[in-house]
C-alpha cells in the first residue's frame, strides 16, 4: 500500500507538468464514457420503436398511425452519440500519447542528468548493469504501463461507474441482475492473481537460475571443450531445464487463465441477463416492445460492465511493474549529488605545488584505507606511486580529481583546498588517463576532441601525433571520421590506450593523473605507449601509478605505498640505498601489480 502511495506521488510529479493535457483526458474520458454508455439506450429505443411500429402496423385499426419517425429519431440520436464517443476517445488517445511519451522522456533525461551529477562513489559501489536496467527495463515497464494500464485504469473506472449509473437509471431490476455476479468475478480474480503472483515469482526464480547457469557455462565453453565436460554440463542443464518447465507451466497456467475466465464470466453474465430479461418481458410489468429494447440494451451493458473488470485485472501485472519501476527510479534520484561550493575560490593555474596534507580516507565508515598520507609535488615534477594491490595508490588518484572527499586532511593546489574550488574549475586543470581506456561510440575525431569539442583539425592531428596514433588513424579508409565503439575492433587494447592519451593531451591539463595499464601488449605497441606516455608527461605536474620500470625511473620522486601508509619516499637511487621494500621489489624482477 505504501509503495502504491509512493508510486502515485511519483507519477503525479511528472503529470503535473501536463495539467491541461490531464484535464483534457479527464473531461473527454468522462464525456466519451457518457456517450458510450448512453448509446445502447438509443439502440434499445430503436428496437423498441421498431417493435411498436410493427405492432401498430400489423393491427389494421392502428395501421394508419404507424410511423417510422420515432425509429429514425432514435437512430439519429444513436449515431450522434457514437460519433461523439469516437471523437472523445480520439482526443483522449492523442493527449495520452503525448503525456505518456513526454513524461517518460522527462524521466529518462532526468535520470541521465542525475547520473551526471551523482558521486563516483555510487558508480563504484553499484554494478553498471544494475543502474542500466533502470533505463532499459524500468522505464520500459513504466512506459508500457502508461500506455496500456494507468490511463486505462481511469477510463475503465469511469466506464464502470457510468455503466452502473446508466443501468440503474434504465431498469433497477435488470441492473441488479447484471451486477449480481460481480463479487464472484472479483473473488475469482483476487484468488487467481495471488496464485499467479506466487507461481510467476517461482517461475522467475527458476528462470533466473537457468539463465545464470547457461550464461556461465557458455562463457566458459572453452574450458568445457578442452576438458571434455560436455556430457556433465548437459546433465546439469537438464536438471535446471526440468525445474524451469515445471515452474513456468504453473506460472503460465495461473497467469494465463484469468483472461479466458473473465471472458467466460462475461458470457455467463450475459446469458443470465438475457434469461432474466426475457422472464421480465413475459411476466413482468414491462410491455413487450419496451422489454425487447431493454434486453438489447442490457446485453450491451453487460458486456460493457465486464470489460473494465477484466481489463483492470489483466493489467494488474503491468501496474505492479510500474510501481516497482517508480520505486527503483526514485532510489536513484534520492542519491547524493556531487557538491560544489556556493562561492568557489577561483583557481587560474598551478603556480607552485600540489600537496596532499595528512590525508585520512575511507570508502566505508570504519574501514580506513589511507592513514595520514602527505605528498608534495612541485610544479612540473612527476611522482610515481608504487606499491602492491590494495596499498591505496588508486585511492590517492581518486582524491586529486575530487572523485571522493577526504575524511580529514586536505588536497591543496597552491594552498587552495580542492573543496573550495568549483568542480569544473578543478577538473579543467586536471587530466586523467585511466588504466582501462574508454571509447565512446562515434568517430575517432569525436573521441579525441571529447574534452575540447571545439578543437581545430591541427590540434587534433598534433595530439594524435604526440600519442603515436596518427599514422594508424591515417591508414584507416575513413581516417579521423572512422566510426568506433567499445565493441567494434578498429582498435586493439594498446591503441585504445594511445587514443585516450591523445584525448588528454588535447585538453592540455596542468596536472596529470595517469594510471598505467598493466595489460599485456606486444613489444611494438608497448614502445609506442611508452613514447606517448613520455610525451604526455613532459612538462606537466603528474601523478603516475606506475607499473613499468622505465616510468618509475623517470620519476622525480617515488612514493612507495603499503596498506595505506607511505613507507618509503625518494628517488630510485635513494630508495635502492635504503635497501627496504622498494629495493626488494626491484630485485625481485620489478613487479608492481
Amino acid at each position, binding site marked *: 500500500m505504501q509503495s502504491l502511495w509512493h508510486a502515485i506521488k511519483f507519477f503525479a510529479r511528472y503529470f503535473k507538468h501536463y495539467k491541461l493535457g490531464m484535464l483534457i483526458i479527464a473531461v473527454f474520458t468522462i464525456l466519451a464514457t457518457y456517450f458510450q454508455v448512453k448509446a445502447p439506450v438509443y439502440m434499445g429505443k*430503436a428496437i423498441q*420503436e421498431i*417493435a411498436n411500429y*410493427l405492432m401498430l*402496423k400489423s393491427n389494421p385499426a392502428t395501421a394508419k398511425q404507424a410511423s417510422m419517425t420515432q425509429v429514425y429519431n432514435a*437512430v439519429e440520436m*444513436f449515431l450522434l452519440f*457514437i460519433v461523439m464517443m469516437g471523437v472523445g476517445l*480520439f482526443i483522449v488517445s492523442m493527449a495520452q*500519447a503525448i503525456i505518456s*511519451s*513526454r513524461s517518460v*522522456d522527462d524521466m*529518462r*533525461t532526468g535520470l*541521465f542528468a542525475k*547520473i551526471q551529477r551523482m558521486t*563516483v562513489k555510487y558508480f563504484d559501489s553499484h554494478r553498471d548493469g544494475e543502474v*542500466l536496467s533502470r*533505463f*532499459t527495463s524500468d522505464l520500459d515497464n513504466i512506459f508500457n504501463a502508461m500506455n496500456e494500464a494507468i490511463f486505462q485504469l481511469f477510463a475503465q473506472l469511469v466506464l464502470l461507474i457510468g455503466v452502473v449509473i446508466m443501468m440503474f437509471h434504465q431498469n433497477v431490476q435488470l441492473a441488479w441482475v447484471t451486477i449480481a455476479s460481480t463479487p464472484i468475478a472479483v473473488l475469482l480474480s483476487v484468488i487467481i492473481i495471488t496464485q499467479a503472483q506466487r507461481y510467476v515469482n517461482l517461475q522467475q526464480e527458476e528462470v533466473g537460475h537457468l539463465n545464470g547457469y*547457461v550464461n*556461465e557455462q*557458455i*562463457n566458459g*565453453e*572453452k574450458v568445457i571443450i*578442452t*576438458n571434455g*565436460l560436455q556430457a556433465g554440463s*548437459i546433465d546439469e542443464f537438464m536438471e535446471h*531445464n526440468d525445474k524451469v518447465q515445471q515452474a*513456468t507451466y504453473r506460472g*503460465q497456467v495461473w497467469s*494465463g*487463465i484469468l483472461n*479466458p*475466465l473473465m471472458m*467466460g*464470466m462475461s*458470457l*455467463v453474465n*450475459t446469458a*443470465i441477463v*438475457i434469461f*432474466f430479461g426475457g*422472464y421480465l418481458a*413475459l411476466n413482468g410489468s414491462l410491455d*413487450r416492445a419496451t422489454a*425487447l429494447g431493454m434486453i*438489447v440494451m442490457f*446485453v450491451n451493458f453487460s458486456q460493457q460492465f465486464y470489460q473494465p473488470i477484466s481489463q483492470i485485472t489483466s493489467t494488474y501485472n503491468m501496474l505492479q511493474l510500474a510501481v516497482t519501476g517508480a520505486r527503483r527510479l526514485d532510489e536513484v534520484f534520492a542519491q547524493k549529488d556531487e557538491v560544489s561550493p556556493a562561492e568557489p575560490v577561483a583557481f587560474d593555474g598551478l603556480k607552485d605545488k600540489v600537496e596532499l596534507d595528512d590525508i585520512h580516507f575511507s570508502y566505508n565508515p570504519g574501514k580506513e584505507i589511507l592513514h595520514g598520507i602527505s605528498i608534495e609535488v612541485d610544479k612540473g615534477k612527476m611522482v610515481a606511486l608504487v606499491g602492491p594491490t590494495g596499498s591505496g595508490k588508486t585511492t590517492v588518484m581518486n582524491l586529486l580529481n575530487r572523485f571522493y572527499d577526504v575524511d580529514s586532511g586536505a588536497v591543496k593546489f597552491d594552498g587552495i583546498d580542492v573543496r573550495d574550488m568549483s568542480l*569544473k574549475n578543478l577538473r579543467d586543470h586536471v587530466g586523467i588517463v585511466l588504466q582501462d581506456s*574508454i571509447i565512446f561510440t562515434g568517430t575517432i575525431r569525436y573521441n579525441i576532441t571529447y*574534452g575540447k569539442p571545439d578543437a581545430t583539425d591541427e590540434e587534433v592531428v598534433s595530439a594524435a601525433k604526440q600519442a603515436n596514433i596518427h599514422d594508424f588513424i591515417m591508414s584507416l579508409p575513413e581516417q579521423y571520421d572512422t566510426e568506433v565503439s567499445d565493441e567494434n575492433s578498429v582498435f586493439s587494447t594498446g591503441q585504445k590506450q594511445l587514443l585516450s592519451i591523445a584525448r588528454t593531451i588535447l585538453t592540455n591539463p596542468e596536472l596529470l593523473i595517469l594510471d598505467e595499464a598493466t595489460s*599485456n601488449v*606486444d613489444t611494438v605497441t608497448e614502445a609506442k605507449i611508452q613514447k606517448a606516455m613520455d610525451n604526455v608527461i613532459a612538462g606537466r605536474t603528474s601523478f603516475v601509478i606506475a607499473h613499468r*620500470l*622505465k616510468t618509475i625511473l623517470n620519476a622525480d620522486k617515488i612514493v612507495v605505498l603499503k596498506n595505506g601508509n607511505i613507507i618509503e619516499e625518494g628517488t630510485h637511487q635513494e630508495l635502492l640505498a635504503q635497501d627496504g621494500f622498494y629495493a626488494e621489489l626491484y630485485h*625481485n624482477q620489478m613487479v608492481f601489480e
Partner: protein
Amino acid sequence: MVKFLIPYIGKYKKDVVWAVITITIAAVTSLWQPKLLQQVVQAIADDKMNLMIPLGIQLIVVALIGLVAGAINTIFAAKIGTGTAADLRAAEYKKVQTFSFGNIERFSTGSLVVRMTNDVQQVQTIVMVFFQSLLRVPILFIGALVLALTTLPRLWWVILVMVILVVVITMGVLSPMGKLFGKFQNLLDKTNNMAKENLQGVRVVKSFNQEHNEEVRFDANSKELTDINIKIGYLFGILMPAFMLIGELAIAVSIIFVARNIVSDPTMLGALTSFVNYLMQIMNAIVMAGFMSMFAARGIESTKRIKEVMDTKPDLTFDANAAEEKLSGDVEFDHVSFAYPGDEHEVLKDVSFKVKQGEMIGLVGATGSGKSTLAQLIPRLYDPTDGVVEVGHENLKKVNEKSLRKAVAFVQQKAILFSGKISDNLKQGKFDADSADMKHAADMAQAAEFIEKYDDQYEHEVEERSANFSGGQKQRLSIARGVIGNPSVLILDDSTSALDARSEKLVQEALEADLPDTTKFVIAEKISSVIKADRIFVMQDGELIAAGTHRELVASSPVYREIYETQKAQEVID
C-alpha cells in the same frame, strides 16, 4: 519458420488436440449465444412463455461450457508452450555442446546465451498465445461471418463494407507502425548504449567536464525517441475509436434497413439483435488478427535465430569409432597451415616441428604472430587447413575424443572458474580426483597457499563470475585444474600473466619437478617466463622462424634478439 517448430510442438500431440477442441468449444459457445438471444427475442415477440425456461437453461449451460472450455484450454496451451520451450532449449543446449571453438566464436557467447534464453521465451509466448487465441480468430471470424449471413442474408453488403474498412484501416496503420517500431528500437538501443557508455566512462566524463554536453546529446536522442513514441501513440489512438465507430455505424445502418423492411418480414427484428452481435465478433476477430500478426513477427524473428543455431554444423567432429588409448606427450606438426574459417589470411604458414615427451617449449612472438593459434591446434580446437597435427603419434583427425582430452590440458590466459566449490572446479580436470590429487595440483600451481587459509579449504565456495578471487588466484586455480589430471601435454597460454615473477618462477619449477614426463608449451609475452625452456619457438607472421635455447637464439635470431633487447631495456637499467 513455423515448419521448424512443428516437430517440437508435435511431441505434444494429445495436448494440441485437446487445446484445439477446447478452443473450438469456447469459440462456438460465444457464437451460439447470439443465436439463443435471437430465439429469446422471437419468443417474447411471439409471447411464448413456455420457451423461456428451456432457452434460459440453454443460455446458461452454453455459457458455462464456454467458460470451462476456455479455462481448460489455458492449461493445455501452457503445457504445449512451456514444453516446447523446454525441449527447444534443451535441443539448443545439446547442440551448442557439440560446437567447436570456431562455432562459438562466430556466434559469440553473448548471442548464444540470448538465443537460449530470451529467444526461447519469445517462442514459448507465441506458441501459448497461438493455442489460446490465435486459433480462436479464424473460428470466430468464419463462424460469425457465416452466421451473420444466414441471420440476415440481405445485409451481406453491410458486412462486406465493414470488413473492407476495418482491414484497410488495420493495414494502413500497422504498416507505418512496423516502420516506426523499427526506428524506435534503433533509437532505444542508441539511447541505452549512451547511458551504458556514460556509466562505464563516468570518470572520463567528469574529469573532462563533459556532463553538460553529454546531457545535451542524450536529450536530443531522447527527444527523437519521444517524437516517434508520440507518432506510434497517435496511430494507436486512431485505431480503437475508428474500430468502434465503424462497428457502431454498421449497427445503425442495419437498424435502419431492418426498420424499413420489418413489415414484409417481422422475424427480422429478432434476427437484428444477433446480427449486431455477430458484426461485433467479426470486427474483433480482424482487429485481433492484426495485433497477433505484429506479435507473431517477434516470435518468428526469435525462431529464426534459434534455427540458425540448430542448423549449424560443428566445424569438426571426432571419429566416434576411434578406440580409447593413452597418448604420449610427443607432438608433431607436419607442414601445418591454418586460416580461420571465412578468412583467407593464413595465420599459420607451413609450420613443421617435432617435440619429444617431457620437453618444455616456449612460444614467443608479437601479437598476431600465430603463437596462440598454434597452441590451439594441439588440443584440436581447430583443424589445420593443411598438414597434419599429431599427438602421441596419432593424427588428431583420427583420435578418440576422450583420449585427447585426457592427454592434453589447455590453460587459457583468461582464467574461467565455475560457480560451485573449488573442488568442483579442480575435478573438471580429473573427475575422480581425491583430496591428495587436489592438494598436489594446488601445490604445483602455488594455489595451496591461499586455498588452505580458508576454513573449508577445497570446499570453499567459488562465487558467480568468481568474484571472490583475484586475477592471480583465478589463474593459479585454473593452472591447478590443468595439471591435476597429470596430462601428457600441458599448454599454458599466457596463463601466468597475473602472477608476480616469484610465483611464476615457483610454478614453473614445480611443473618441472612434478611433471617431468609432461610436454609443456608455454606461450609468453615476457621472455623471462620462458628463458629456461628446453627450446623456444619464435613466431613471426604465422611462420616458425627460429627454434632453440635462449642462448642459441640470442646468438642466431635477430627477431628474438630484438624482443629480448626491448624487454631487457625495460627491466634492467642500472
